[in-house]
């Protein structure tokens, strides 16, 4: 069901852990839906020098956290903001349709962490360009019931 890349990132997650004195932290998800993702950033000169994640969720959620954090490491905040869930999924060599929302979590977690940093630094939070519907488990026209 999962690509080799997904399984690699799931079995050997990059950047797993926490940063105790992070410059920005973002938490998204909902335990009743079976997923929570927390992203920690260290920012120096507008550049993400360190990033860590903690994830409670499925294989796709873990792999997405791992891949997304890899993708934003060393990037400017502007560049990091542009990393979409689609890009994460593509870098993972695809996700099953019903698992696309797990990559959305990663995108949202990063956005939240960046805005946390911005707010702490007295900056306007950026607004989501394409807010994702919270059609959590993405099945047909049904939505997560909790």
């Amino acid at each position: 069901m999962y690509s080799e890349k997904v399984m690699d990132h799931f079995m050997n997650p990059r950047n797993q852990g926490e940063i105790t004195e992070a410059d920005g932290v973002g938490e998204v998800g909902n335990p009743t839906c079976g997923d929570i993702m927390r992203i920690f950033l260290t920012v120096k000169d507008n550049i993400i020098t360190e990033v860590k994640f903690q994830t409670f969720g499925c294989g796709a959620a873990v792999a997405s956290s791992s891949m997304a954090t890899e993708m934003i490491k060393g990037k400017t905040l502007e560049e990091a903001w542009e990393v979409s869930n689609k890009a994460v999924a593509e870098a993972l060599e695809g996700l099953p349709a019903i698992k696309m929302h797990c990559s959305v979590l990663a995108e949202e977690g990063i956005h939240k962490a960046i805005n946390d940093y911005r707010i702490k630094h007295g900056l306007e939070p950026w607004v989501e360009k394409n807010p994702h519907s919270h059609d959590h488990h993405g099945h047909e026209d049904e939505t997560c019931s909790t």
Partner: protein
Amino acid sequence: MTAERIVYMDHSATTATDPAVVDAMIPWFSKGYGNPSSLYRIARESKTAVEKARSQVATALGAQPDEIYFTSGGTEADNWAIKGIAFANRKKGNHIITSAIEHHAVLHTCEYLEKQGFSVTYLPVDETGQVRISDLKDAITDQTILVTIMFANNEIGTIEPIAEIGKICRERGVYFHTDAVQAIGNVAIDVVAMQIDLLSLSAHKFYGPKGIGALYIRKSVRIDNLLHGGGQEKRKRAGTENIPGIVGLGLAIERAIARMDEQNKRVSALRDRMLDGILKNIPNTRLNGHPKERLPGNLNVSFDFIEGESMLLLLDHFGICASTGSACTSGSLEPSHVLLATGLPAETAHGSLRLTLGAENTDEDVDYVLEQLQKVVIRLREMSPLYAD
């Protein structure tokens, strides 16, 4: 990279077909292939083989052979029982009673009937997963035509008070169907003593082949056909008989009953040892289902702070086959309706693991699973933002 060792602990999902059963099936593919509806010798031989299997199933249930009808599996048996009774008895009433923890083959069939104008009561269960007899009594009205309550639950293994339910239904003149797909070979069943009117079973859950099952229909029960067509199965279930499957089902159920007591003792001892090990070695863990009234091989535990699918993926990496009640595995919307019905919060249900032991499992398997499982749980908890708190 994948482990050489495979430990299969998902016997409630399906079982390996017993090689002796496969051997018994093989002659019926290319040699004894006659269509039992035909008249010539190889056809009569097929017919004889089908009738032998029918007797084997009847014996296992304490039924008469002419009360056994072969189907394509548990799902068809459940659909037939419920829709067949509903449509045939609509004039008598339009109310059906079931439980909140049935398999989807029952639940979705009931939901379908609701769309057709029937009214369905979904009885709640207590925290062990048992329906309360008083709830059942209260739910029966003069419109009730059918009670369908499973014999044993596929997720948490809880065994329902079937004989008591049967007694009440018979007294109140209501048909009683039980989905015994998980119970066959694990619990002694007597349809007469337990006053069961209809019972579903599926061969692949007791070391028989997939794609074959049966419905027991007590004589004189009024039921419509589900599959219309040829005159097979005394004109009640059309379709050319799956002879190898039927032969396999017959032998599998005979063998399952013959070894039941001894196997239950062995398997439940393994299961109990595994449970003890888990509860002792892994904190923040709880057992789901009934402490005693449960299937001998069933273990269902919840691990706080972690999610089931990632547990399964890691276990699979170590060659361990298991299942979970987390919604994330199936891409469905909610974690197991069964776990929720027992009052488990959704976040805990997401961290549930079902290990169902069976014929091939050994003491070494238990040791291996205990060891790997502990590692897996630790690893995932380390990753979890919930545990980190």
